């Protein structure tokens, strides 16, 4: 059998069959183009974006104050001002997380296996960045832990991707508080480590939210 180009086949059909073929094609396209505008991610929420920016401004100013040698006394964990800051900023993050959870409905990060595999492959190839640090004994176990991360295990069943990234901002904040509690105060050295990690968590969450903007 000779397979003719579509246009040639169409012109060889009788007028009724041709009309039927064209009408079917038009309807299919109408269904595809007119009635289906696909949506794979939830709407951009400026409240979440602004809330993250407000949190970051507060935590950055707080860590800046803590890192000043002159403020060591005021920076003691038991200081009422420090306690007030932690209570208020945690309330701010809890409200933000609640807002995100209300928006996400029953969504789950990584609903499709093909996406998990694609992202997994991207992550696996990028993890080679960590390999040059294997010689540092103190962090080897942690590096191995990172390499063992399984994309689906980490993301499945924990809510939408937005819920996960905002939860990480809150978890990091609680870790900062626990370090402060353990150490008694935040030394400039500790702030030099914690600050970029806190900033990174917020930056990732902001990137996640901004990606949902539609033209």
């Amino acid at each position, binding site marked *: 059998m000779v397979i003719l*180009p*579509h*246009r040639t086949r*169409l*012109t060889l059909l009788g007028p009724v069959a*041709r009309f039927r073929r*064209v009408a079917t094609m*038009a309807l299919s*396209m*109408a269904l*595809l*183009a*007119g009635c*289906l*505008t*696909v*949506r*794979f*991610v939830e709407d951009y929420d400026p409240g979440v974006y602004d809330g993250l920016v407000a949190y970051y401004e507060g935590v950055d100013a707080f860590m800046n104050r803590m890192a000043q040698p002159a403020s060591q006394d005021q920076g003691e964990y038991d200081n009422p001002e420090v306690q007030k800051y932690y209570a208020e900023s945690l309330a701010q993050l809890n409200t933000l997380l609640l807002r995100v959870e209300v928006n996400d409905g029953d969504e789950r*990060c990584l609903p499709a296996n093909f*996406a998990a595999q694609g*992202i997994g492959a*991207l*992550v696996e190839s*990028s*993890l080679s*960045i*960590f390999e*040059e640090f294997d010689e*540092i004994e*103190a*962090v080897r176990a942690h590096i191995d*832990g*990172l390499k063992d*991360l399984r994309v689906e295990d980490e*993301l499945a069943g924990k809510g939408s*991707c937005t819920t996960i*990234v905002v939860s*990480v*901002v809150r*978890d990091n904040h609680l*870790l*900062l508080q*626990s*370090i402060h509690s*353990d*150490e008694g105060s935040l030394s400039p*050295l*500790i702030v030099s*480590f*914690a600050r970029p*990690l*806190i900033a*990174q*968590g917020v930056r*990732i*969450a902001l*990137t*996640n939210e901004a*990606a949902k903007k539609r033209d």
Partner: protein
Amino acid sequence: MSFSDIDTEAIFDSLFAEAKDVAGDAWDEIRSFVKIEFKGLAKQIKEIGKAVARGEIKQRTARALLKMARNNLISTLAATTTLVFAAAEKIINAALKAIKELVNGALGFVLI
């Protein structure tokens, strides 16, 4: 062009052109995002390891800082997922828009 002039090849050429442009930019952005965040993490982990080795910070504090780094890696995975799905949405909607323009252009009136 009349409607009978539309053929499958024309549709796919149009779809492919749209998808290639959108996917190209989106994929570069996603790759760059993952690389920047992972490099930042690697640098921070290295510095924490050095400070522990020199006895400058307590093991317990180092563990909390490394937990933050691990959290950020998980967060990078989640945000990458959003970037991929947002890009897929843009690609498919751009392709659907191309079909719409092609069909309406061929018909000479707005059908879809």
